[in-house]
Structure formats: C-alpha cells, structure tokens
C-alpha cells in the first residue's frame, strides 16, 4: 500500500508541475449526517484514516434532503472531484442518471449495484458476518434458543437472518432459531417500542440471545435484552458499548474499509463489482473491552475457525438474495 501511495504522490507532483488540476476525491454522506454513530460515521472514519495516512484531502457534503442527491453528485463531478464516493444505497437512482454524463469521473457507491462502466459497486457479504454472529449466539445460549429481529421485511434483511440461522445451526444442530420482522413499511426501522415487545415475546419463547438488524428499532431490542438479562448482538457499527457486558458482539460492516480502499485507489479506481466479505475484512464480528468478559475462549476458537473456513472456501454460507430461499430458516 505504501509503495502505491508513494507512486501516487509522485504522480501528483508530476500532474501539478504539468499544470493539470489534481483531482481531489469527494465523499457524500447520506441523510443522518456523518456523526450518526453508524453507517455514515464509519464512512467518515475511513476517509479520515486515508487522509491522515496519505496527507491527502477530500471534499465532503452532508445531505439534508433526498432532492440534493443528484445535485451534489453533479456539483462534485463538475468541480473535477475524482473519485466520488457515496455512502448508502439510496444514491442508486441518482447515480444511474449522473454516471453516464461524466464518463471520465469514477464513482463508488456503497451497498448498492449500479451498472455503469465508471462505477464501482461495493456490496457486503452480510451473510458471512451474520454466520459468525450465529455461531457465537448458539455457543453463548444456555436455553438452546436464539432469535433474530429484523427491521423492514426486505430481502437484504432476510439475508442477515439466513446467515445467522446457518451459523447457529452449524454450531449447534439442535438450536431453535426464531426470526421476526418488525414490519413491512419504512416505519419498521424506527420503532424501538415494537422492538422491545418483540424481544420480550421472543424471551417468552425461550430465547436468550437476540440479534437485531433493525436500525433504530434495534436500540429498543438491545435495551430490553439488557433490562431482561439476556444477551444481544448489534449490527453495522460496533454497538458493544451501548450496554457493556450485555451485548455479546456486533456484526460489523466495514464501510470504513470500503471507503479507505476506494480513496486509496484514487483516479484509477477499479470499477465493477467490489465484494467486501470476510476475506478482505469487509465484514466481521466486534471484539473489544466491552464484551471480553462474556466471550469465551471456546467460542472464539470456533468463530475464528469458521471464519478461516469461509475464507478458504471450505464453508459456503448461503446467500438468501441469490435465490430468495433459506435452507436454515422459514420465513
């Protein structure tokens, strides 16, 4: 990486002396802002890490409304920013419009696929990370029942649930996996009250580890799990700190790594599919001071063992979105 960075800065020097404008990369944060303790903040951290390590600078904008997406993209493209990274699937349709108008600009979109020659589509293998979370859940469970609470019932969230169930069943074939979705409308992402009640309902069915992939609803899930004395699993960002000692782990989506990678490649950004899986540290489970007391050595060795096997291809975790079905769970 450092060699490449040096090469790039050499190229920069040349470009500057040649009188050409050196393109700064740009990053567009989605609604919610860059300090959302989640997706955007993770993207921001990746960009900051790149800036600190390379001494580069980047331009940025925090969107205030949906209507600004295309406008922000065009403004950066007109100003010569390259590459332009956008955090969030919601940019999909705006980018489809814009990408063709700026064939010399490279774009990177995270969590969405846009089919254009100058676009890198970064997608995450959430099912692999969830598989590891499932292993840890089944290992930690004393009742033999673990559960999952999704936000809105969409294929992406079923992908999380399916990976989780496969992991849990791999660690303990007798485990019972309960899965509930909060709702079928976008309100399901922000209904912590319903999340709490679902958690209580799952506890009454015997669950003692609950995995929440439900946005703001998950806050209620983690809270109730802590109140009722069972373990919970966070999602996207590291949520272990929310209830130290009571959140078993968090399934991480390393948006920061994706952004860092895109910025490092600069104008020569490799376009097309970019799958962030276990192999290239795109997903994983969080281990820190907050959960070291509840994670056992046996649990860890099993989890890391499975991670190695997934990376080497010995285990293939079924992706729900590939055929809209799940071998380990009925929806």
């Amino acid at each position, binding site marked *: 990486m450092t060699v490449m960075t040096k090469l790039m800065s050499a190229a920069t020097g040349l470009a500057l002396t040649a009188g050409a404008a050196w393109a700064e990369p740009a990053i567009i944060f989605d609604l919610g802002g860059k300090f959302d303790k*989640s997706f955007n903040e993770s993207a921001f951290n990746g960009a900051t890490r790149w800036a600190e390590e390379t001494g580069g600078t980047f331009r940025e904008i925090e969107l205030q409304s949906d209507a600004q997406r295309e406008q922000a993209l065009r403004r950066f493209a007109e100003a010569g920013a390259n590459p332009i990274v956008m955090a969030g699937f919601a940019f999909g349709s705006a980018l489809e419009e814009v990408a063709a108008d700026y064939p010399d600009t490279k774009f990177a979109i995270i969590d969405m696929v846009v089919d254009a020659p100058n676009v890198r589509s970064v997608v995450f293998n959430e099912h692999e990370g969830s598989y590891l979370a499932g292993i840890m859940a089944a290992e930690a469970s004393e009742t033999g029942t673990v559960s999952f609470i999704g936000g809105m019932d969409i294929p992406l969230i079923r992908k999380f649930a399916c990976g989780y169930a496969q992991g849990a069943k791999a660690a303990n074939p007798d485990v019972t996996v309960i899965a509930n979705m909060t709702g079928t409308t976008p309100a399901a992402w922000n209904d912590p009250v319903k999340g709490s009640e679902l958690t209580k309902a799952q506890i009454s069915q015997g669950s003692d580890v609950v995995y929440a992939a439900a946005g703001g609803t998950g*806050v209620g899930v983690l809270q109730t799990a802590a109140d009722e004395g069972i373990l919970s699993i966070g999602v996207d960002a590291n949520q272990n700190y929310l209830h130290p000692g009571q959140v078993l782990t968090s399934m991480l989506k390393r948006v920061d790594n994706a952004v860092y990678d895109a910025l490092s490649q600069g104008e020569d950004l490799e376009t097309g599919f970019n799958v962030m899986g276990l192999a290239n540290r795109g997903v994983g489970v969080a281990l820190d001071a907050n959960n070291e007391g509840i994670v056992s050595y046996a649990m860890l060795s099993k989890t890391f063992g499975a991670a190695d096997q997934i990376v080497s291809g010995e285990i293939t975790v079924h992706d729900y979105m590939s055929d809209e079905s799940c071998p380990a769970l009925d929806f």
Partner: protein
Amino acid sequence: MIEFLNLFSLPVLESSLRLGTPLLLACLAGLFSERAGIFDIGLEGKMLVAAFFSAAIAYSTESVWLGLLAGIGASMVLAVIHGLASITFRGNQLISGVAINFLAAGLTVLIAQTWFKQGGRTPSLPEEARFNALEFPGLDTIAAMPVVGPVLANLILGHDLLVYVAFAAVPLTWWILFSTRFGLRLRAVGENPAAVDTAGINVVFLRYMAVLICGVLCGIAGTYLATALQAGFVKDMTAGRGYIALAALIFAKWRPWYALGACLLFGYLQAIALRPDLLEAAFGFKVQVQLLDALPYVLTVVILAGFVGKAIPPRAGGEPYVKER
C-alpha cells in the same frame, strides 16, 4: 383448545397492556380536543416532541420527573400553536395538525443531532432516569400465590406509574366530561358553540382549555414511550401510534370507556401480531402479520361505514367558531 387459550396467555396480555397504554393516553387527549370541536391529527407530533424532550431532560438532569415535566411542556407548546392556528386565527384544523406532525418529526431529530451528536437520538437513559415498575410491598408473597398470583403480580401490579395514570385517566375523563359543569360546557362547545356563547360562556377559553388538556395527555404518552417503555429517544419513535389512537377514538365513538376498550383491543392486536407462532398453533395455518397490523384501521372503517352502530362526531368539529355580527 389449549392453543386458543395461549392466544390470551399472560405475556401476550402484559404486552397488550404496555402497547395499549400510549394509545389510551393519546386517545383520551384526542377525546378532549375533539369533544370541544377541535380536530387534532397532531397527536403523533405532540407525542414525538414529548418523547424527545422527556428523554433529553431526563438524561441531562438524571431526574425522570423533570423529564416528565419537560415532555408535557413541549407537548403543550405544540398544543398552543395548534390552538392559535385553529381557534384564534380560525385556520384549517387538519392542516395545522399535519404541520405540527412535520414540525415535530424534523425538529426532534435536528435538536437531538446538535445536542447529543448520536445520529438524531438521545443517549440511553440510566436506570434512575426512567420510570421503572413500581415496587408494591409484599409483591413476592402475592406472586407466590397459586393461579391468581402471577396474574396479580405481573398483569395488574408489575407496571410503572404512568400505566396507572393512563388507566386512572379514563374514569377521570368520564367524570369531568359528564359530571362537571366544565365538562358539560366543553361538550356543548363541540356541538353548538353559538348556544354556549349566547349563554355568556367564553367559547375561545373553553376550546383552549380542551387543547391544553390534550397537550398534557399527549405529553404523558410521549414520556411513557421514551422513559418507561424505552430508555431514550429514537427518531420517529412514535411510529404512527398517534394515528392509531385517532382510529381508536372513532372506534370508541368519542366516549371515554369505549376508548379504554378500543385501545386495549388495538393493543392486543399489536401484541398478538408479535407472536406468529401462537397464531399458527391456534389456527393451524400461517396468519399474515400485515393483516393484524391493518386490522385497527379496517375495524375503524367498518365502524365509520355504519355497520356497527353509528359513529357521530361532535357536530361543530373542525369548524372554527365565528361570532355572528
């Protein structure tokens, strides 16, 4: 048979009670307002600001009581705005209500983000800054009693203060509206404000009182969501409960005791929707959760269509009062 009884098992009923409480408070809030002739679809927004300010103040001061006051206060500010728009300036009450919902949705997230920088939510409240289950003396002995013990301990006694406030508000509302002079006048203002005015009673004052009481009850409802059911505010956390409460109000035909029944029923429907396993065991096939989520609205439409009795709203509802000149 046992599968059917399981549909009414203790955890489900407890859950219904918890989910029904915010509906009940908001429903009674709407009842006061609409009985006085002021339609209020801003219940949702008032609950939302109350949820935010109660959580924010409870977190900053570590006192849930100050949180409750802040929640009620914030909700009353929006109530006054609604009052100004629809009583003083005789604007359209529905539009004012919609505006209040939008205002609340945007304002709460904006303030939360600038204040706490956690993506538009408040930090989690510590134990002492929340309404916890009341500790009745001898609760353990009661819980140990056979059969009735668990019911008493979990279903009747094991709640926080605001749940009892909500249930006490039902007879209180009934008493105020139907047994006091103030209540009689309030209802009259919603039916025929001109007659009330002719009798020399201040219509504007009465309508403001109704709107303010509505603000207080919505404030308690929002506080209940953020500090009793949850430990903090999350954006849009009311998740449409204000609208379900409005549906319950129509379902209850603007009567307090019916409101209790309607809210418990809607709470039960929400609770049973969380247990697809019990439904499948009872009916032998998979019941779509969406169906249960939609049921409160379907029932309300059935009532409105006049299939089960008639739902007649207060006659002067929605109309600003203009003195004849």
